[in-house]
């Protein structure tokens, strides 16, 4: 948004509004819809009803965790184990609020954070941080616009995928294969987004423990082994290593 021609020139930019947030969400919307579509198709293929697929998107609203939920539920993992695994996976979200608000400055309002923080996904966090890094000013309406656009794309994409159904892609094997690879691609991309030199031992140990647990016990045990071994590696590392 540009300022009127007769407006005084100030050093501090205007805070972004709801519409600016929606505009900033456009790349996320374009990306979220096909991934959510893939989730809807996968969910119905795995035996969930369309309503259950949409419910997962509405309530959990965390893409990677939702795909994992499908894998865990359909593999027969106990729901408590599934819930703990999914919650552990989403622990990374703890760091987003402080990182965003540190960038936004001390004057940033957080009165309505209880609502907009629901939509603080990896991508929304990245887009908000990117906007602030480009000199934009933080505002809660902007966070609502950004979050609502992304959320609408995620839920509607899931609904369309669920309506299409698990057999919808049988005639399109390339599309079927591509959508099937969405999950590993998403995990790898997320891994790249959080990768730092100090985390390499954590990642390596988690990977090896996952393979070992999967080969020697089963897939669910492999996931638990990987997460626990990786997190312990991070906790046990020497403080000065960072």
């Amino acid at each position, binding site marked *: 948004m540009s300022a009127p021609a007769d407006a005084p020139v100030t050093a501090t930019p205007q805070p972004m509004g709801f519409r600016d947030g929606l505009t900033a969400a456009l790349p996320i919307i374009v990306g979220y819809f096909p991934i959510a579509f893939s989730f809807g198709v996968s969910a119905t293929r795995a035996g969930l009803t369309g309503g259950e697929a949409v419910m997962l998107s509405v309530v959990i609203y965390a893409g990677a965790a939702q795909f994992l939920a499908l894998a865990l539920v359909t593999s027969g993992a106990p729901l408590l184990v599934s819930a703990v695994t999914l919650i552990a996976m989403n622990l990374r979200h703890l760091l987003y609020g402080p990182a965003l608000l*540190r960038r936004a400055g001390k004057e940033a309002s957080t009165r309505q954070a209880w609502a907009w923080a629901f939509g603080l996904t990896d991508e929304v966090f990245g887009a908000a941080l990117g906007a602030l890094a480009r000199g934009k000013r933080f505002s809660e309406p902007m966070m609502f616009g950004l979050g609502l656009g992304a959320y609408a794309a995620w839920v509607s994409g899931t609904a369309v995928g669920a309506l299409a159904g698990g057999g919808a892609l049988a005639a399109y094997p390339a599309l079927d294969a591509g959508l099937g690879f969405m999950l590993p691609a998403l995990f790898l991309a997320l891994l790249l987004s959080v990768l730092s030199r100090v985390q390499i031992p954590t990642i390596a140990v988690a990977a090896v423990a996952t393979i070992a647990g999967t080969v020697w016990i089963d897939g669910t045990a492999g996931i638990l082994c990987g997460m626990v071994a990786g997190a312990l590696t991070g906790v046990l590392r020497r403080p000065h290593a960072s």
Partner: protein
Amino acid sequence: MRLDLFAMALAVGLATWAFRYGPTRLNLSNMAPDSLLNRFLNATGPAAIATLFVASVLPYLEQAGGHEIPLALGTLAVLGGFAWRRSVVIATLCGAVVFGLASALV
């Protein structure tokens, strides 16, 4: 709608919301970088994601026949997409498109 599935989703959804909202109140940014909690939080995310990436790729490696080349190309496409735009969404879509095309052609 299965009640147990809804209960699990609700627990995960509530925890995820608490992870996203809670720190805006607790101000974890003042946490000492070398504290046990900070190291745990820093390690848990990458450990979880690395675990899930490996777990999601293993079935492709275990299945017999034809997945190696699409898997390699799809992985390279994710790396290339991320290097290009630094975007999780773009990298994911690049990987899926290349994997799908490679699967059809190989």
